[in-house]
Every structure is written in C-alpha cells, then in structure tokens.
C-alpha cells in the first residue's frame, strides 16, 4: 500500500516538474488540479479556479517585527502590526489576485488587486526597493522631490512624468484632489499617529487606497531592509524580493562575523549638541546596533531604549572626551562647520585626531542624504562603511558609499 502511494506521488511530482518546465498554467484532465508555477507578475488571471494556489512564491518574514503576510489561494492578507509608535490597532490589507474574486468578509480592510500597476509614494525609503524590482515605471506620484537622492525620481520629476502630491515628511499637506485625479492603485505612506501630521486619515476619508508602511519603526538594520518584501507583495514579486533580501542579509551577517573576533573595539559617540541638549541614540536603536555589528564600543550600548536619549553637553563630554571616533555629525560637512556650531568640540580627542565621519558622502543639492534613502534597503553597505572606519584592516579594498571623513 505504502509503495503504491510513493509511486503515485513520484509520478505526480514528475508531472509537476515537467509542467513547470513548460511555464504554462494548464489544467490536468484527471484529477482536476491546476498548478501555477510562479506568482502572476502582470495582468490578471483569465480563468479563475477555486482550487488553485495563485501564490506559489511566498514571502518569509524573518527579521522585521512590524508586518506579517498570510497567504490564501487567491488572496493574501498583509498586516502592519504597529502602524506607528503606540498604535493600538494593526492595519490589514487584503491583496487579491487580479481576475479572482475578493473574499467576502474583509472586515473593512482595504482590498487591493495585485499586481498593482501604479503607486504613489510618500517616503524616499521605498525608492531603492522599487528600483531593484524594476518597478520605477509604476511610480506615478511622490510626496516631494526636494530631498530625494534617487536619480530616476529626479529625472521623472523634471520631465514632469510623476505628480508631486505633498503629504510626506517635507512636502506640506497632502493634495487630495490631485490624488483623486491621479487614481493610483496604491498610495504608500508612513504614519506618526499625530492626526495633524499624517496624510492617511484624509486619504482614507476620500476613499483613496492608502497603505501604511512602518519601516522606520524597525530597530534592526535587517528588519528595516526586509520591508522590501512588504512592497514586493503588491507586485507579486515575492521570489525576487526574497532573493535580493537573502543576498543583503547574508552579506550583512558575513560582515558581522568579520568583527566578531576583533580584540580592540574602538570607542565611538555620535550626533551633536544643540543649545545644551545632545540627543544620543538609545542602546537598542538602529544606529546603535549598526555600531555594535561594526565592532565598535558605543558608550550607551547598555541602554535599553530604542529611541534617543536627551543628554546634556557636559554628560557627553565627560563620557566621550577621549573617544576614538565621532560619527553622524548631522548637517556639518567640514570641521570648521562643526566648530561654527560650538567651539567646545575641539576638546574632543576624536576632533583633534580628525577621526570624525559623517554619512553625507551622497547628498543631493538640497541636503537630502542617500544614507536615509537607499541606506535603508542596503544595511550591508552601511555596515561595510562602518567596519572600514573602525577596522580598516578588515576591509582593505573598501570604497566608501555613504560615509566620508570630515576634513
């Protein structure tokens, strides 16, 4: 009995492999099972069949804490567990394969037909993902281009091929009328939970398909990068996103492994004072974790916070006067610019030895830094920069991407 079953199974599998080689969606005569070999990447399904799994490529979320994807035969449910810091309820989105019926009870969740063909973005952190998926041609509008580093976006904007609709962090209030006119499949935005700043309440009210992306709330570099899979779900590009992310993650892990064995961990502090207040990143924050993985000794690494800690200048001075490195000095592009902010910076050893680095190597004409844009999708590149700063002997051939030494 068991033998018969095994034989039957192997026949089925062989059939399946043969069929996938043909790259077709064919129904087998007997029994009636349709095999779809990959997610539909353009257009709709012509003949919907109940028994078919239309999403054979499924995303596995490993690092990101903020979202979840559940797959059903012809739709998937994307849940943003924490749309903003302190949010009480998750937001869910039902992504239905185009050409198939939407589930009946969606409990008020937004229903989006996928793959989508047009998107409006309200954060620059989505550009690198769209770019690597080859989906920049679906971008029909953005919040603002002043601080965008991405060259494709700048080119599209100057050719007036994309609409500027406001509503992001730096673009003023959202232009609901322009968005209604544009009619995109999805408007992706971040949310703060403060109604005066957020665009999504107005957009929901207008019946527009707004999706909240909470990538910035992830505290781990890889968690933040993994939101690429969230965006990919709207294009049925799970397989591509998985490949890309796995590469980033394995490079990141390999780099972290490089610094595991370093004996000397140089001490480092970050940011600058402003009028007596010095905000340093908490020990479990994105910035602090990058420093830890790069094999540096960050002074506030034992702090349990994920946000920033407001300190006094004298506290930072007392702690970090003899520190080896000083990083992330904000808007300053040279040492004299730093001195112009406060002459007391000369007292730091790192300033005297010139070990001051900033993430402003790639910056656009308005001061928009690519570190905050493509850096989010490429934490391995940031980490490589940091390792080259702290342990140049580990990466002797490294060319800096985001960081540069301040002269």
């Amino acid at each position, binding site marked *: 009995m068991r033998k018969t079953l095994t034989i039957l199974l192997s026949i089925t599998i062989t059939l399946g492999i043969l069929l996938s080689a043909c790259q077709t969606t064919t129904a087998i005569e007997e029994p009636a099972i349709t095999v779809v070999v990959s997610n539909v990447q353009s257009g709709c399904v012509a003949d919907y069949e109940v028994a078919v799994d239309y999403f054979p490529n499924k995303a596995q979320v490993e690092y990101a804490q903020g979202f979840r994807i559940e797959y059903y035969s012809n739709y998937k449910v994307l849940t943003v567990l924490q749309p903003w810091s302190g949010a009480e309820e998750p937001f869910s989105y039902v992504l239905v394969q185009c050409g198939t019926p939407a589930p009946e009870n969606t409990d008020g969740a937004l229903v989006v037909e996928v793959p989508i063909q047009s998107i409006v973005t309200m954060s620059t952190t989505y550009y690198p993902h769209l770019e690597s998926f080859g989906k920049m041609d679906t971008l029909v509008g953005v919040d603002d281009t002043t601080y965008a580093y991405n060259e494709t976006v700048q080119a599209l904007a100057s050719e007036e091929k994309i609409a500027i609709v406001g509503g992001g962090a730096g673009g*003023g209030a959202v232009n609901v009328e322009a968005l209604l006119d544009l009619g995109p499949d999805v408007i992706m935005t971040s949310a703060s939970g403060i109604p005066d700043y957020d665009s999504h309440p107005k957009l929901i009210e207008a019946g527009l398909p707004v999706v909240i992306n909470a990538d910035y709330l992830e505290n781990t570099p890889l968690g933040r990068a993994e939101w690429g899979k969230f965006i990919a779900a709207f294009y049925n590009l799970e397989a591509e996103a998985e490949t890309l992310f796995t590469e980033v993650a394995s490079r990141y892990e390999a780099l972290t492994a490089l610094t595991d064995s370093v004996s000397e961990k140089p001490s480092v502090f970050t940011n600058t004072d402003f*009028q007596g*207040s010095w905000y340093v990143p908490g020990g479990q924050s994105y910035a602090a974790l990058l420093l830890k993985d790069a094999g540096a000794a960050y002074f506030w690494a034992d702090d349990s916070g994920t946000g920033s800690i407001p300190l*006094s200048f004298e*506290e930072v*001075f007392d702690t970090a006067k003899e520190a080896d490195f000083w990083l992330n000095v904000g808007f300053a592009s040279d040492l004299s610019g730093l001195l112009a*902010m406060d*002459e007391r910076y000369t*007292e730091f050893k790192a300033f005297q030895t010139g070990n001051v680095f900033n993430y402003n190597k790639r910056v656009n004409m308005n001061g928009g830094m690519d570190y905050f844009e493509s850096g989010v999708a490429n934490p391995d590149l940031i980490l490589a920069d940091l390792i080259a700063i702290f342990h140049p002997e580990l990466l002797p051939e490294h060319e800096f991407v985001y960081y540069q030494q301040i002269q």
Partner: protein
Amino acid sequence: MAEEVEKNKTLTRPLPPIRWWMFSLLFLGVLIAFTASLALGSVDIPLNNVFRILTGQIADKGTWADIILIFRLPKTITAILVGAALSVSGLQMQTLFRNPLADPFILGVNSGASLGVALVILGFGTTGSLLLAGLGLFGDLSLAVAASLGAGAVLLLVLLIGRRVRSPITLLILGLMFGYATSAIVSLLIYFSLPERIQTYTTWSFGSFGGVTWSQLWVMVPVILTGLGISYFLPKSLNALLLGEEYARTMGLNIKRTRFWIILGASLLAGTVTAFCGPIGFIGVAVPHLCRSLFNTSDHRVLLPAVTMMGAIIALLADVIAQLPGTQYILPINVVTSLFGAPFIVWVIIRQRRMKSTFAD
C-alpha cells in the same frame, strides 16, 4: 484736583525706606544660586573640587576642570545675564505700556529673532548652510548673528515708527502685527521643511543657557551691560510714566525721548537674550510682579536693582532644576520656568495687591 495732589505726593515723596536686609538677602540668594548652578549638573562633581577648580588648583578628575570652566561657568554667567536682562526689560515694558501682561517681547523683537533663526535652520536646504558659511565672517556666532539681525531689524522698525506715533497702544498693536507677520513666514518655512530641521528649530524655541560659549559671552556681556546701563538711567522717568503720559509731560518729561531710550534699552536686552538663548518666556513677566509684591512698592529706584537680582536668582535656579542633578537628562529652560515658577508667583501675587495700585488708573 484731589487726585492730582495725590499723584504729586506719590511722585515727589522721598525714597521709601530701602530694606537693606531684603537687598542683602537677595544678594545672598544670587551667591547661593550661583554656587548651586556651578556645583550641580548631570556629572557629579564634589563641592570642594568645584572650589579647587575655580581657584586654579588640580581637581580629582581631569575632565572636571573642563566641565566647570568651559561648560558650567559660561552657562552660569549666561543665566545671570539672561535673568537680569529679561526682568529689567519686562519691568520697563510693563511701565511703558502700563500693562501688567506686557513682557520684554511685546514689541516683536523675539519674532524678528525667530525669523532669523528659522531662515538659517529651516531655510532653503543648503542655502541655509551657505548662509551660515557666508556668516563665517562672524565666526561662531552664526545662529546668534541671524537672530540678532532679525531682532535688530524689528527694533529699528519699531524705533522709526515710534517716532511718528503718539500713543503707546499703537506701538503695541504694531508689535503684535510684526509678530503675526513673522510667525506666518516661520510657519511657511516649517511647512516645507524636514522633520529633523523642524526638531532643531523647536529645540531652539525651548530656550537654553548651555549653548553660549566663552567667545559668545565676549559679545553678550558688553551688549547686556549697555542695555542695563541705559535702563539704570531711567528710574525717575519710569516713575513719572507710571502716573500717565499726560501727567509725566506736565512734569517736564520729554515723552518721545524717554520712550526712545526705554524701547532701545529694553529691546536691546530682550533681543540679545533671544539671539543667544532662544525665546525665554515667563521670567520677564513674572519677576517684576514678584518684586513689586515682595518690596511692596512700584518705585523703580527700588525695583530696578531688585528685579536684576531676583531675575538672576530665578534664572539660575531654573537652570539647576533643568539639569536634573544626578540624572543624565536635561529639561528645556522654558518648561522649568513656567512649570515650577508659575504656581509660586501666583501664590505671591494673590497674597499681595500691589499690582492693582500700580496699574489702576
């Protein structure tokens, strides 16, 4: 007629018995607050070490001397200057406009300063940093220079227009309008700016003594002393104004000239403070009331030195509380002055009724 005689009596009566013990107490208070401000902070430095450092001896830990000499001492001196300047400025404005709610910024100097700072911080992307670089001429004064330029521009406008208008109420409304216009521009800049830049601007607007360095004090000290100097020449004119402009005029007071000097002195003080420390509220309104109540007088010959010292004490204490001694954290100055100061001042004023007799016509 009887009223006239009464007023005459008020004006010409001899200096009220100066309570020397009260002034001595105030001075002692300044000394204690000064020491507390130097000795307390987020880094724990024992008092004997503070004295050793101040007298040029070696401290137990190397960074302590730096902390006292390049962080706390300039901050403490700044607090004294700010407290004195705002209180004196507020006192003069309250008298000039005969309005208990008048503060040092009533003529719009801090709106001007805010606009200057907003242009630099929120300005047009790197245009702002270019502006900063352009101001490199002034060395480390960049933000302060922008704020001074803004405050100075408003002051100049007020002085020019002040020569043409008769009523101080007109000036008051002008100041209000400057405020609306500049805050509209600031709002516009905020509207189109990045969150981190907005945060920087917001931090500035919370006020702080800690951002002032020694080289900035070289500018701040002479300007504040000039402003205080002007004010100390005016107590008799201020007393006369308290009785109404008409009356002061009959006393032979040159109203226009007096008004010019009051506005110049008070705005110089308020503008300088805002330029270096951000808009610091509360002290300028509250300290004059507090001193009127404590000294039970509205005579400016008593009030001027009293508010100078009381302002310094309040500013120093606010700074000590803001540093939250023993913790790593610090609070914005405006939070402390308003949150801790307001209930106290309310209590003092309710107990006394000097305000009514000062401002009632």
